[in-house]
């Protein structure tokens, strides 16, 4: 018995001893930026295949170091707070809802990549000062999604427009992440502001009156409440992305069970820019160049579920068929958003939380 205990103790001590020291591991790299490393401050949704990043290193000699910093809002605010002592050489992931803040606070340096694809100009920021600092890399449409299977089973015509969502036939069927805690949620609020102007508050009152449900995040809405998500919930209408349907193609089938309503979409564009005071501005510029080139652009849909700004790049087959983008998406000028964000959000909170 005593021998057993002694053995257990020794085993535990050894296990602790050999696995200790998270600090000095073999991959310990505290070199930071400067030299041959480009540090990229981005959002948590960053994903890119190793192959593509290796190609960049082979081409330019720079190694990319990714620093995720929360969602687009957190990322922007961190950049603002660390102005003068930047946390990275460049940023990627500031979107059109936060672009004005980043530019106005002066955290970015001017840079426009060489050989920007012609189609990218459609996504550039309208203000010339803003456009000089932020380069569009990709875009995505935040749209209302529906569970087609559910509507077939219930012999109900699915909704098509924002107005439809307030009709009594669709009572208690819609779930959306909240604008104050989720970026797609904010995008949906902006959709309604773009569509209804000053009448947006009245629209939201009707929407809430029709039993719309607000959750804190996208995963909560899609994976718990949505009938077409992993949680088999009881709401067949959800706010998600135009790129969501291909993920609902059942095994062995070829058609998704859900679709996006393309008349309800808000366009989010994501930008890259060099940070003022970067230790490695040359490397940052090289990576922004690379982000607008073919191999990176082509890898965007599979890795980050967004669309490349270079229209010459072919989309994956499922996307080309089932993840079409909105022909006429809604937008709100970034300067407007910057000016009214807190007012809109508090008005929105008042309506949705009474």
């Amino acid at each position, binding site marked *: 018995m005593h021998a057993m205990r002694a053995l257990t103790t020794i085993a535990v001590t050894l296990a602790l001893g050999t696995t200790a020291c998270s600090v000095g591991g073999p991959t310990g790299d505290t070199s930071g930026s400067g030299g041959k490393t480009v540090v990229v401050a981005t959002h948590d949704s960053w994903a890119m295949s190793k192959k593509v990043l290796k190609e960049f290193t082979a081409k330019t000699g720079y190694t990319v170091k990714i620093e995720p910093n929360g969602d687009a809002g957190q990322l922007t605010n961190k950049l603002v707070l660390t102005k003068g002592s930047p946390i990275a050489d460049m940023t990627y992931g500031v979107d059109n809802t936060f672009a004005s803040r980043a530019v106005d606070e002066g955290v970015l340096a001017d840079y426009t990549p060489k050989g920007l694809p012609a189609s990218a100009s459609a996504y550039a920021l309208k203000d010339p000062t803003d456009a000089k600092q932020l380069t569009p890399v990709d875009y995505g449409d935040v749209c209302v999604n529906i569970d087609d299977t559910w509507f077939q089973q219930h012999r109900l015509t699915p909704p098509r427009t924002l107005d439809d969502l307030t009709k009594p036939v669709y009572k208690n069927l819609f779930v959306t992440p909240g604008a104050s805690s989720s970026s797609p949620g904010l995008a949906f609020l902006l959709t309604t502001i773009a569509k209804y102007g000053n009448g947006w508050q009245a629209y939201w009152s009707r929407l809430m009156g029709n039993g719309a449900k*607000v959750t*804190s995040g996208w995963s909560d809405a899609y994976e*718990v409440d949505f009938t077409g998500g992993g949680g088999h919930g009881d709401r067949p209408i959800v706010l998600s992305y135009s790129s969501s349907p291909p993920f609902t193609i059942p*095994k062995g089938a070829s058609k998704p069970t859900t679709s996006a309503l393309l008349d309800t979409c808000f366009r989010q564009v994501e930008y890259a820019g060099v940070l003022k005071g970067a230790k490695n501005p040359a490397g940052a510029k090289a990576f922004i160049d690379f982000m607008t080139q073919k191999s990176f652009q082509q890898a965007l849909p599979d890795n980050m579920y967004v669309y490349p700004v270079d229209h010459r790049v072919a989309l994956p087959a499922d996307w080309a068929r089932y993840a079409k983008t909105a022909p006429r998406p809604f937008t709100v000028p970034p300067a407007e958003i910057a000016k009214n964000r807190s007012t809109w959000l508090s008005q929105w909170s008042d309506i949705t939380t009474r």
Partner: protein
Amino acid sequence: MTGRVRSGVGIAALAALPLAFLGVFFVLPLVGMVARGFVTDGHLDVGAVLEVLARPRVHRVLWFTLWSATAATVCTVLLGLPVAHVLYRVRFPGRGLLRAFVLMPFVMPTVVVGVAFRTLLASSGPLGGLGLDGSPVAIVAAMVFFNLAVVVRTVGSAWAGLDRRREEAAAALGATPLQVLRTVTLPALLPGVVSAASVVFLFCATAFGVVLTLGGLRYATVETEIYLLTTQLLDLQGAAALSILQLVVVTLLLYGAQRTRSGREHALARTAEREASRGPGRGDLAPVAVTVVALAFVAAPLVTLVLRSLRVGDGWGLGHYEDLATTGAGGALLVPASTALANSWRVAVDATLLALLLGVLVSAVVSRRPRPPAQRHAVAVLDSVFMLPLGVSAVTIGFGFLVTLDRPPLDLRASPVLVPIAQAMVALPLVVRTLAPVLRSVDPRQHQAAASLGASPLRSALTVDLPILWRPLLAATGFAFAVSLGEFGATSFLARPDRPTLPVVIYQLISRPGEANLGMAFAASVVLGLLTVGVMALVERLRLGSVGTF
């Protein structure tokens, strides 16, 4: 006079290292971030910050914070005491495993538990009929779920060594079981209960993910408000005002808790656990019943998690567990989940060692009873100071790290040491709260006796304190390890992207589309929980083994 100076120097020497840590990794970032809110265009603007406190919304938010945290704390204590009794005073087979199981919720990532709770409570779920989805009841229930372990373990480890003879004497003198409980047992446990309750309150008052997920954004707490103001609106004035408010409330609370505890902590007669716990008797029926209910309550969301982790497509299988060796569907992760698990383990070891080192030092200081009133007061203040990190917003501290630790000699923003340090700061109060009540209950005459026999202070600590401290020390180790494994708030701010911990990876997975990533998130959560239970069960084994050596 020299004695007074010597005891003062002793306290200062022991407290120096923990205080330095607290200064650099808590006070500095907090002050740095709050200062940003007070300064507008280069000059101090206190008025603007105070104006924020007059907003009606702030009053509403403060009220809900206090209300929900108080309700959750009361429920956790009421539920936790019977469970502590059954798991630490009654002997039965499988007890060690149950003790470990109770700790499982403590390490569960909030986002996953949020989804698990909502799967149960949503109108489509098995408990949908209760209509609790999005209600304050759901928020409070989740808080109880997460914090039950704090009460069970803190109170339990104090209870385990409590000498039964005083209770038996009272019973022999004709006291009913309820009278024994009220007049003998509870007064002896009170310091431990107050300790646990204050930790639970702080955890609840700063809960963030739970409030957002389960309240469906309808309810705001001071913490969610700070998050919103800092990360979305960049309203630093508002955030600073709320951080100050949080600090004031927490300080008041800790002061009150300190006053309640002090004066009630006496030297207690202790025995080995073997003698203190016995087989179940008739009087244990009620606590056993409560324990069964409590365990069912803890198990329900966990079972939901396990079921969803095993659901592959329309069938069942281990596919999601096999996927843990990969980087997820569509390369959702930078490293495979299994690598993140290894990172979590290494970080947890470092954080635990650090928390124990600092925790023992702090406990040694705060359990002293110096004669001079000034020193006594200083000790009381120190006791509460080390609890503060639990009560202050992780968002404020996280952003504070960014704006203050950015230049030599503290250029640590990109350093991997921040993760274990931050986790140790969170674990430290739990370690202190587990050790200090036990140390305080040591009869000072034992030290005096040791000293009169010529023992040095170190020797006296080793022969008097260590045998008593050994059990709580193991409990604290397990706690610190669990805190570190499950910590998400600070870690998500600080973890290096190329070496994330498992909770960070789980969060990344759950925010990605695709059933495979969601399933992986659930599988990873189950693995995290099982790992914790495994480690805790091992600690329990060691603990039993050690009793015989004294």
